């Protein structure tokens, strides 16, 4: 603000792959704190809708009531609406009993096995009161005939399950069932430099054993030139196996591997509750809201002295 040294950077994002359930992107020109903040928010703070309350009317299945309730809770529900829904704890339309249309969705399940064949009760048997919040459909679009719901319980002849369930908005921090992320991970981009001169001193057999020493397929030997080449630097898991191998072969410094500390490769997989791309966007949105909360809180200005430049930075300096 006052023209001092600024730490502000302008991170760049490059999307490598984008499907409904998986997104892979590169995040560059920022540091680990930002990357990690993004990861943490994706896991724990992006809201979704999940079954939170189950009223069991009839349950003559082999699994007990809590067991079924727990299984129901873990079923991912489509939650595009979750960002605009209210948390039932601060919903003023229903005085906090959490059963109004703004903060909850009702489900019904009725299943009874009438014949000798075992009946699978799946997430497909859950009937939602709101067509935007339904159990995630995992069936293959190419083979629509095949029903692939998530199995809740199996019933034998005469067994019955009847229940009413209420789904509510929540975040992964409270319970893992509200976490929209199946996998969120990032890695530093590895920089692999092979010392070509030293490598040339190895015989082909030695090269082969060295290449084989990596648990993942990072290096390979060019069939034409018989030179060791890096085929997939990102397959490297920072396991140091090749470095140890080089040392044991008496060739320390055969390869240098460094982590680029300002670029990250992100892999985000969603549970299906929201699209993976939406998950990233929601996470950024929530991160912004959190920063706003810090910036707008009353004592931020007072804390200016304390935080100094950092405070200014947070306020957009």
């Amino acid at each position, binding site marked *: 603000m006052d023209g001092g040294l600024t730490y502000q950077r302008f991170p760049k994002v490059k999307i490598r792959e984008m499907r409904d359930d998986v997104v892979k992107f590169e995040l560059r020109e920022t540091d680990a704190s930002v990357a990690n903040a993004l*990861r*943490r928010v994706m*896991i*724990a703070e992006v809201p979704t809708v999940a079954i939170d309350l189950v009223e*069991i009317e009839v*349950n003559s299945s*082999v699994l*007990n*009531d*809590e*067991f079924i309730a*727990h299984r129901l809770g*873990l079923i991912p529900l489509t939650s595009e609406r979750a960002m605009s829904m209210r948390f039932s704890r601060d919903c003023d339309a229903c005085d906090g009993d959490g059963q109004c249309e703004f903060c909850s969705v009702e489900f019904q399940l009725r299943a009874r096995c009438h014949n000798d064949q075992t009946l699978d009760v799946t997430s497909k048997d859950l009937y939602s009161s709101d067509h935007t919040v339904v159990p995630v459909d995992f069936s293959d679009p190419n083979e629509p005939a095949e029903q692939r719901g998530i199995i809740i319980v199996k019933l034998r002849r005469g067994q019955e399950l009847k229940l009413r369930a209420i789904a509510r908005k929540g975040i*992964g*921090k409270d*319970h*893992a*069932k509200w*976490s929209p992320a199946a*996998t*969120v*991970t990032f*890695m530093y981009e590895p920089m692999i430099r092979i010392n070509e001169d030293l490598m040339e001193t190895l015989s082909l057999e030695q090269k082969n054993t060295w290449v084989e020493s990596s648990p993942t397929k990072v290096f390979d030997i060019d069939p034409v030139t018989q030179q060791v080449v890096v085929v997939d630097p990102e397959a490297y*898991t*920072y*396991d*140091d196996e090749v470095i140890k191998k080089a040392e044991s072969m008496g060739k320390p410094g055969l390869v240098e591997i460094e982590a680029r500390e300002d670029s990250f490769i992100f*892999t985000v*997989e969603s549970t299906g509750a929201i699209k993976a791309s939406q998950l990233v966007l929601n996470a950024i949105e929530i991160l912004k809201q959190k920063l706003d909360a810090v910036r707008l809180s009353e004592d931020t200005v007072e804390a200016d002295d304390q935080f100094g430049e950092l405070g200014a930075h947070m306020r957009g300096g």
Partner: protein
Amino acid sequence: MGLKQDSSEEHAKQNQDCFECWFPFYTFDNLSDPMEKWLSFGKQLPYDSGIDKQFLAAPIKSSVDKYQLVPEFLKVRGLVKQHLDSFNYFVNVGIQKIVSANDRIVSSVDPSIYIRFNSVKIGEPSIPRDGVSEKITPQLCRLSDMTVHSRKSYPKIRLEKKNVIIGRMPIMLRSCCCVLYGKDEAQLAELGDVDTGTTKKRIIIDSDKKGNINASVTSSTEERKSKTVILMEKGQMYLHLNQFVNKIPIMIVMKAMGMESDQEVVQMVGRDPRYSDLLLPSIRECAKHGVYTKQQALEHLEAKVKKSTYSGASSEKVFFLFFVRVRRDSFRAKCIYVAVMLRRMIDAYLNKDTMDDKDYVGNKRLELSGQLISLLFEDLFKSMIEEVKKRMDMNMARLSRSSRFDPLQYVHGDSISAGLERTLSTGNFNIKRFRMDRKGMTQVLARLSFIGTLGHMTRISPQFEKSRKVSGPRALQPSQWGMLCPCDTPEGEACGLVKNLALMTHVTTDEEEGPLISLCYCLGVEDLELLSGEELHTPNSFLVIFNGLILGKHQRPQRFATAMRKLRRAGKIGEFVSVFVNEKQGRVYVVPDGSGDKNCSILKTGSINKRCVYIASDGGRVCRPLVIADKGISRIKEHHMKELLDGVRTFDDFLRDGLMEYLDVNEENNALIALYEGKSTPATTHIEIEPFTILGICAGLIPFPHHNQSPRNTYQCAMGKQAMGNIAYNQLFRMDTLLYLLVYPQRPLLTTKTIELVGYDKLGAGQNATVAVMSYSGYDIEDAIVMNKSSLDRGFGRCIVLKRCSAIRQKYENNTEDRIIRPNREGDGAGRMQILDDDGIAAPGEIIRPGDIYINKETPIITRGPTVSPAGLPDRAYRPSIQTFKGPEGESCVVDKVALFNDKNNNLCIKFSIRHTRRPEVGDKFSSRHGQKGVCGTIVQQEDFPFSERGICPDLIMNPHGFPR
């Protein structure tokens, strides 16, 4: 564990970088062929000479894969067959023997009146209810709280025409009297009983021994039991017997038995001058007492006999060593027996090496439930006979009898039933007749986990008290190889004393002796009666000892033993009869052929014949099956195994065809057993079936136990029994006082062969976890574990606890009864009665909180005095006796199931099973399968957990400092 340890060390080094230290517990990549691992186990064995790396690396294809025999063996035998065998033997043979040995009750007033028991029979398990006897199943008993006690049947005794019930007998589950006997799995499931493994309420095992420090012999028959001890004191030898007031000089005993000549005694013991030197003081002592003739000796003994209350027993009737039969008043056999005892004693005195090893497994006998129950039954049966006899005499002595005399009215089973029930429920065996007073003989079968149950049923506990600070009996005995598990023993005071049977061990039951004895004589055993003392001890002749009884001698022991074994392999004699040729009892240095230039006296020691052939057919010996090899070549060939796989051949066929046999610990000494066929030499006589069978059930669950530090295996054996998971197939129908079940039990990714054999993969306990080995948060010091909250949210380690509450609708003596009434839906107290149905009993599926009433019961105020009609009683004659649920505050449980039934006294009994689902919390204990236990130190959010480049996030973090080095 091996795999984990290896990598943990690596990881420990690079631990600073937390993010890379995750490590999965079980990985598929590390699943190599367990056979290979076992091979390296063979390296530790004594037979192995140089290690041929090429051979070790090569797969063992050459020899026949005998693994299939193990499941086959367990199929025919089950894991705990020894208990059943023992009990079945008692029911089918033992009880009959006891009854026929004491089959007459003769009135002493008029000997022409007597009761004779023709036969005894055990009926079907049933229960008298309203005058009708109803058949019962174990499940019914379990529910009705009657457990063993009601699982009885009627031993029936026939008097001329009548069937008389003499008592009710508790029945072991799955034994031949039990309804489950001979049922296949489907039927078992219907009866609501556990399938894998066998159920039984109580187990009784104990060990017993024969020692020789002061030459003692314990003996028992159907008639009586005794212990004879010959001891040496200040150079003189005495006989100690309970019938005598104090110990008797041995020479007097010999004289009393008709060996008046000292020379004869010395000859009988052995001509070696050192023997006579040691005998001299005893001879002198005898002379000092002025005893020279048989008559004098008998008079001397007469004076020493304890005056019993019954009758003046003459010394002729003093029974010692009474299992040696006295034929035509000839005490010769007894004399020889005493002489042999003396000889062994002197040997032990001269040479400590010949002392019997007390801890040697071959000298021990296991007492199984059948034997113990038969002792108990015998005692009670005899007491009953005495009682009946007394009553009969009393009645007969009366001059005028008003009613017709029926002695049978005195024969009823109350004393037997009550005695059996009392002893089994308290576990105190106090049998005066056999001078037996032992406590804690019965234990309630541990039912908290499947493995715990199985482990409990293979446990062996010692007779003597555990407080002794001796190391001898606690040490691992080489002779327990293959018979008792080397790993499975508790820590602390019972360490090494309480043992467990190995996987393939069988415990024998008694076998008919008569035919075996005559067989021995047929095979060339020279009768003892015909031998002089001198002949007895000629070199190159072997004493033949049958179940501790000297039969005679044999000139060609090996030939004799081979003949016996051939008969056994052909199935002509029992498969568990053991033949053991002891060639070096005493010090056999050189056979005196004159060529030896050793010290003369040693030569003499060597020349002295103390060599014996032992034949054993008694019960309680441990034995195991082995493959027979001829000159190192296994008799089991590829085509045999193929037949087995095709189902044409069973395990019994292998025994019958002489391909395999059972060896007990003693006979193992005559065998050279190769671990693998490939390791056999021409001298090899037997080949192990599978090396892993040296371990017991609990130790068999450990993956790669040979890579573990040895105490870790022991820890794991104790801890495997605590694992939560499944208990039995009927777990959801059981009404145990406490039951722990896992919500999501899993099959281990890495299994062992034992796991498949015992059915742990079907009734498993535990879950597969992804584990990171790293320091994290400081809440993981001292073996603590950091857990991932999201994993717990998703059901990791979630468990169901089932507790039992019960209530009885009691009947009172004045014909009144408790009543269970409809709850009051309004007014005060209605809130606490919410979960009650209209019948006043809590409904299944209701959420129950501490303070809630689960049964709305009322008790009549007046329960004594004159009989009243319960129907006419007004409401005010009752006072409320509601029962409220007590549990930790704030915990909400659910009524899982409610069972109504009639108990022993025909009162209505209501049992409630209360369920609570719990998720792991700080302080809960977790363990790997390698004795690595730890408590949960803290629970951490998933976003704070380490993750890998692939996105794997562990379920829990273990501290690398906690791993054994």
